[in-house]
């Protein structure tokens, strides 16, 4: 299809871009999705059926890993030594005096499907109160829409993905039940549930983007425990096998992998006019756009806007509010692991199959603003095979080590917590002044500073994780990992905040740029607050569906063209 014929160009094929592409193409619009990363074939690329499955992380392919710069992180204080990461083999995991990036620091997959390709697949709705942090608690910013506005879109996304969830809804009311029943809990998770009950905590099946029954032409999950390594069965609801598959089936959507957009060019009358991009063969081109959706995530979307500065927007495109790149919220997480005295075959089953929402409401942790959640975490901790047991939690060597490993295998129990990150002036994304990618574009630079609230929250999360594990029968901890001493962000938010006021927000309540009338953002960069540990993919999808509906409505009214 000639470029001029596309009604909408979407940059990024992750949760937001895919959901928008599906909604628009199934409603008759012609959509082009440009994705910087490669396409993955679940059967060919994922290696869970091979002998070396455990030694392989999520498979890297050419262009599947973005490059970033992490600015120096904060100095660690000895008074928080109980928040340092450690394991029985190596001792302190970060022996340095500063917080360090864990691997790349920002864990992101570039590819058709984006980070949903390797996500665990929790399918969460935001807590309604977590969308009103400014009004209720005087921090972050309010969402310009409320839970009721987003609820119908959550329901649509859940149907597309095939979310398996419980009947209980807690603080998140629902207009329709989950499309699929919840998954049965692993033996290890059942043990954690008993401990939670002893402590007076709730413990319910976690809403999961993994099929508990065959659905939409995809088979049910077979509980291999390795969602994060890529699901070869396609029962995990990553957007490549859900939204994008159905968008492509319309015949109105085209996806071009390994195509990097390097610049957005503005035109007259408050409209963006075209994009510059580099295709798979390395050829640089320009393409006119009628409507442009950015869905590159909370690091790359502000990078592209800042890198597209021109005479009309010297501080970066859509940055009249000076908020592009600001308000970054990263992941606040903690995982404690110990060994039970008997095997529960904890490497089997669905990751994160149960959750405790008791402290998710923003005012539920005593003395702290912002919530958190707790969930079964042994699979996400990677304790799914003998290599990780041997390298991390069973010390020693020689014949004694072999025997210890045999005895320990299947006994690991982990519980994890994820908590709210409040925006602060020292946590943001800008362009590195020197480092560039292969196309000459300046790299994004991530700055992050944990505030006092984050450290208090981490302390609560760590204390509660330890308490649950000990109550479950763990006599001695074997490993703990947290984001006090490591920057390890899988969920990042806030760098193109949405809001009603153009002076303090980059996009409006529909995800449309306050400045450029045909420019939209559909990713977690628009989140005004991070939520109390909710996984963001379902909310990104719901927001993108709503933005798509706004575009469809505007098209009918001949707006933005």
């Amino acid at each position, binding site marked *: 299809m000639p470029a001029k014929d596309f009604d909408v160009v979407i940059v990024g094929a992750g949760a937001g871009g895919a959901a928008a592409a599906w909604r628009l193409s199934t409603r008759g619009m012609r959509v082009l999705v440009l994705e910087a990363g490669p396409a993955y074939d679940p059967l060919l690329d994922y290696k*869970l*059926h*091979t*002998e*070396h*499955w*455990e*030694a392989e992380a999520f498979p890297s392919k050419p262009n599947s890993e973005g490059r970033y710069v992490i600015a120096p992180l904060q100095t660690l204080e000895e008074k928080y030594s109980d928040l340092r990461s450690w394991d029985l*083999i*190596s*001792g302190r*995991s*970060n*022996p340095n005096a500063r917080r360090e990036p*864990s691997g790349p620091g920002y864990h992101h997959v570039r590819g058709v499907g984006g980070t949903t390709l390797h996500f665990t697949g929790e399918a969460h709705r935001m807590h309604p109160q977590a969308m009103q942090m400014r009004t209720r608690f005087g921090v972050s910013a309010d969402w310009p829409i409320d839970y009721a506005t987003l609820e119908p879109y959550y329901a649509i996304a859940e149907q597309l993905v095939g979310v398996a969830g419980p009947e209980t809804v807690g603080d998140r009311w629902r207009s329709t039940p989950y499309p699929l029943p919840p998954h*049965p*809990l*692993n*033996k290890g998770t*059942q043990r954690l549930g008993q401990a939670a009950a002893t402590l007076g905590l709730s413990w319910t099946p976690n809403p999961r983007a993994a099929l508990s029954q065959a659905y939409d032409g995809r088979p049910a*999950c*077979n*509980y*291999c*425990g*390795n969602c994060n390594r890529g699901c*070869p*069965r396609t029962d995990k609801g990553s957007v490549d096998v859900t939204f994008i598959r159905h968008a492509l089936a319309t015949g109105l959507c085209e996806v071009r992998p390994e195509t990097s957009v390097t610049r957005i060019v503005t035109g007259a009358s408050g409209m963006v006019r075209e994009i510059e991009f580099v295709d798979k063969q390395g050829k640089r081109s320009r393409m006119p756009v009628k409507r442009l959706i950015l869905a590159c995530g909370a690091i790359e979307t502000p990078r592209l806007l800042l890198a597209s500065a021109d005479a009309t927007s010297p501080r970066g495109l859509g940055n009249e509010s000076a908020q592009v790149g600001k308000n970054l919220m990263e992941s606040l997480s903690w995982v404690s692991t110990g060994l039970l005295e008997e095997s529960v*075959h904890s*490497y*089997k*089953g*669905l990751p994160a199959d149960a959750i405790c929402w008791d402290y998710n409401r923003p005012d539920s942790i005593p003395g702290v603003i912002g919530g958190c959640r707790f969930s079964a975490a042994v699979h996400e901790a990677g304790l*799914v*095979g*003998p*290599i990780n047991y*041997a*390298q991390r939690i069973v010390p020693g*060597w*020689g*014949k004694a*080590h*072999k*025997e210890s*490993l*045999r005895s320990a*295998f*299947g006994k690991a129990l982990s519980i994890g917590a994820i908590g709210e990150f409040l925006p602060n002036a020292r946590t943001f994304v800008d362009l590195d002044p020197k480092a560039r990618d292969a196309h000459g574009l300046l790299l994004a630079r991530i700055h992050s500073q944990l505030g006092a609230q984050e450290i208090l929250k981490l302390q609560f999360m760590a204390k509660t994780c330890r308490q649950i594990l000990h109550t479950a029968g763990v006599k001695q901890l074997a490993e703990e990992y947290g984001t006090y001493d490591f920057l390890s962000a899988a969920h990042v938010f806030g760098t193109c905040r949405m809001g009603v006021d153009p002076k303090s927000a980059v996009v409006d309540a529909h995800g449309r740029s306050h400045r450029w009338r045909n420019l939209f953002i559909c990713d977690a960069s628009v989140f005004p607050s991070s939520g109390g540990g909710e996984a963001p993919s379902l909310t990104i999808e719901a927001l993108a569906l709503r933005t798509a509906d706004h575009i469809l409505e505007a098209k009918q009214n001949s707006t933005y063209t």
Partner: protein
Amino acid sequence: MPPTCLTRRQFLLVLLWSVFAMRPSRALAQAVPAINAPGTGPRASFAQSLRAFVDVLIPADALSPAASTLGVDVQIIAHSKNDPRFRRLLRVGFKWLDSQMPGGFAQLPEDAQIRVVEWLSQADSNSLPRRLFEILRHESMSFYYADHRSWPSLGINRPPQPIGYPDHTI
């Protein structure tokens, strides 16, 4: 951080240590007097010493084979060819280790090899011996337990897919 991921600082520390400490270690000789015994055959090569070392880390027992039987030493050497820092650490580390005993590490009796490895495992955390031990332990465990022949004694006999674990609740 996995032990194989040597930071530049750690790597420089190790190299610096190796420059000043490339001589017989009195502490090691005191801990393992047997290393002073003359060798009984031709001096061991790097490959022989590595093979002996990984078999001390993961020896054969009644239920599963030794590391070298599964080619762990060969895989470590192959892996080092793609990682210059790891390759350099191995080369310098075994040069130092083999220099501590007349016939090299592989010539030592098994009980002396075990005591030498034990000494390495307790050495200063920024020293060459300790880094050598940690990296070889890490790599050996990775290659050994990635081999299906090591699995039966752990109660598993296949990778997670294509069957999965339908019995996960019991």
